[in-house]
């Protein structure tokens, strides 16, 4: 356990508090750079999804985690980014331009959403964002001249600096990774400067923030705009990864998946966004594993406990039927959300912090260190 002795304001301001961090992140970066040449293309494809989900996770972290504005409508911003990409590609706009356009248009619409959201609090804001997402979904399906309605739009491969960047290539992976790293560094810079502190102030006590000279209206709109813009950039990458987009890919369920990223990861730090993204992207392979390998394993276990061959086969069929059921994904999502909210409110990153603290304080660790303050009085819920 290292003790940090700060002698300069730089020690407080810099991003990496001490050399240990530089080493660990350096190693991580090196591993990520080597990955496409060492791992299978399937895993690289999953990593690309992790990068995209993590980017949206960071965006949502800024809005919901740091500024306290709940948003269940981020699939709409992703859709705006994706559709801008597909639409501008039809006019042969070069990649850097339409990438920027995707983010900026999304950001502008985010700012527009931020204005009415100023006066909404708590549950009303959640419902307003849900309504916004549903309206956007419907517009995508109906505005056929632009979005081609329910038939969807094809997304052509990226043409950058004269070369094609196919969606399975290492170059595309590096692009997504690069965007994620830029977004993370930008957000860290934001959070250690006055704007970031203003966001946190708005979350913790709007009245006090107002009295300190923070233009709450302007900062809330900024927060929405930044969050939407980042999601728009992710939307462009998402569109390229899928190579085909249609309105039914941007449902409320996708918005909830993004929220799950920050709930699973922990809604107060950027590590959480990445951890949550990794977890969410692992759900699909997990389901496949359930379908393919688990029924056999269960039957084997039953046989080991002495069940007859027939009984074991019947058990295997039952488990296989359950694992293949259509609704299993939804049930697992539901269970994940409930388990994390009930037992792991600080998310995976919180669990990691608790483990670290356990080893640092051994044997004096106390669970009560992290016990949350529950608010039972209605008047304390308002800020």
């Amino acid at each position, binding site marked *: 356990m290292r003790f940090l002795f700060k002698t300069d304001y730089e020690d407080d301001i810099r991003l990496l508090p001490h050399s240990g961090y530089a080493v660990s992140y350096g190693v991580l970066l090196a591993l990520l750079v080597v990955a496409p040449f060492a791992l299978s293309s399937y895993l690289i494809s999953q990593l690309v999804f992790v990068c995209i989900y993590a980017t949206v996770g960071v965006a949502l972290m800024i809005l919901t985690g740091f500024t306290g504005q709940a948003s269940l409508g981020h699939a709409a911003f992703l859709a705006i980014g994706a559709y801008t990409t597909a639409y501008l590609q039809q006019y042969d706009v070069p990649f850097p331009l339409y990438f920027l356009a995707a983010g900026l248009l999304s950001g502008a619409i985010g700012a527009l959403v931020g204005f009415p959201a100023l006066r909404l609090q708590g549950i009303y804001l959640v419902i307003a964002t849900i309504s916004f997402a549903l309206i956007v979904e419907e517009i995508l399906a109906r505005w056929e001249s632009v979005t081609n309605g329910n038939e969807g739009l094809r997304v052509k491969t990226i043409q950058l600096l004269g070369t094609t960047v196919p969606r399975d290539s290492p170059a595309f992976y590096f692009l997504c990774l690069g965007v994620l790293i830029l977004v993370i560094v930008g957000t860290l810079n934001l959070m250690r400067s006055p704007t970031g502190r203003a966001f946190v102030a708005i979350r913790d006590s709007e009245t006090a923030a107002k009295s300190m000279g923070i233009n709450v209206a302007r900062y809330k709109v900024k927060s929405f705009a930044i969050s939407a813009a980042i999601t728009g950039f992710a939307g462009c990458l998402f569109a390229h990864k899928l190579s085909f987009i249609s309105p039914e890919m941007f449902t409320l369920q996708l918005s909830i998946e993004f929220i799950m990223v920050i709930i699973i990861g922990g809604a107060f730090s950027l590590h959480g966004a990445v951890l949550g993204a990794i977890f969410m992207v692992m759900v699909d392979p997990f389901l496949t594993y359930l379908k393919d390998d688990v029924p056999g394993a269960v039957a084997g276990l039953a046989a080991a406990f002495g069940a007859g061959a027939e009984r074991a086969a019947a058990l295997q069929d039952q488990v296989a039927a359950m694992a293949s059921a259509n609704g299993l994904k939804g049930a697992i999502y539901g269970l994940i959300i409930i388990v994390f909210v009930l037992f792991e409110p600080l998310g995976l990153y919180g669990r990691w912090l608790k483990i670290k603290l356990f080893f640092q304080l051994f044997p004096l660790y106390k669970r009560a260190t992290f016990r949350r*303050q529950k608010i039972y009085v*209605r008047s304390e819920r308002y*800020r």
Partner: protein
Amino acid sequence: MLDFVQQLVSGIALGCVYGLIALGFVLIYKATEVVNFAQGDLMMLGGFFAFTFIGILGLNYWIGFVAAVVVMALFGLVAERLIVRPILGYPQFSIIMATIGLGYFLRSVAGMIWGTDDLKIETPFSHGVVRIGGLVLATDKLSVIAATVVLCALLYLFFNRTTLGTAMRASSENMLAAYYMGIPVKRVVSIVWAISAAVAACAGVLLAPITFIHSNVGLVLGLKAFPAAVLGGFGSIPGAVVGGVLIGVIESLAGFYLPEGWKDVAPYVVLLAALLLKPEGLFGVAMRKKV
């Protein structure tokens, strides 16, 4: 003109279903300040249980109805005990996510148990019509309207005239103070969830003749019930039903008079417009912290 009235009645009937779901939201919100996003799915489960009792086991409609309501009330108790009670003091957002998770879970499990096809039940109201002047009104819609009025009146009286109702309102304001005054807050919250689930079950059974029962009906209707509850102000029982009826009428008329696609979006557009003008909802009260 007749068409208009026909659509209006349709809209009111649909709106009553939204209103019943919104009632469930408001009941739980009034007692615990939690918004139960799984309310629509509780309604769906009520419909499924009714199908099992009436359709599969062949019980009489009314017995099946009551049985479904009772089973759902018990289910509400269990859900409250397992999921809501441990997280009662948490930030609102966490509790909302937990109920969303519950909704997902219920939807999927129902799909696995009862399958994903549409199901039908035979009810005494399925086929009758009432003729007034030139109007032909289906009895299934009228039954929904009648039941909603009755339930709304009963619940309003319950909340405002009985001791238990006052206890519920007290615990929603300040749980700690209610504890100190001797109100069994945990039991009160359980009872509210049971009542709310029972109301949802009623809605589910009444709805069966109008739309078929399937596992996604809770999500679709539940999402529309939000504008209803918000318009009504999230704290007012009559408000919830009024909001629901408004939304139902808007949806019905939009479907009839406006081009395609507006039907599903109109309630949300109206909701956003209403929130712009009055962020606390039509019947809601503006709250702020005293500093």
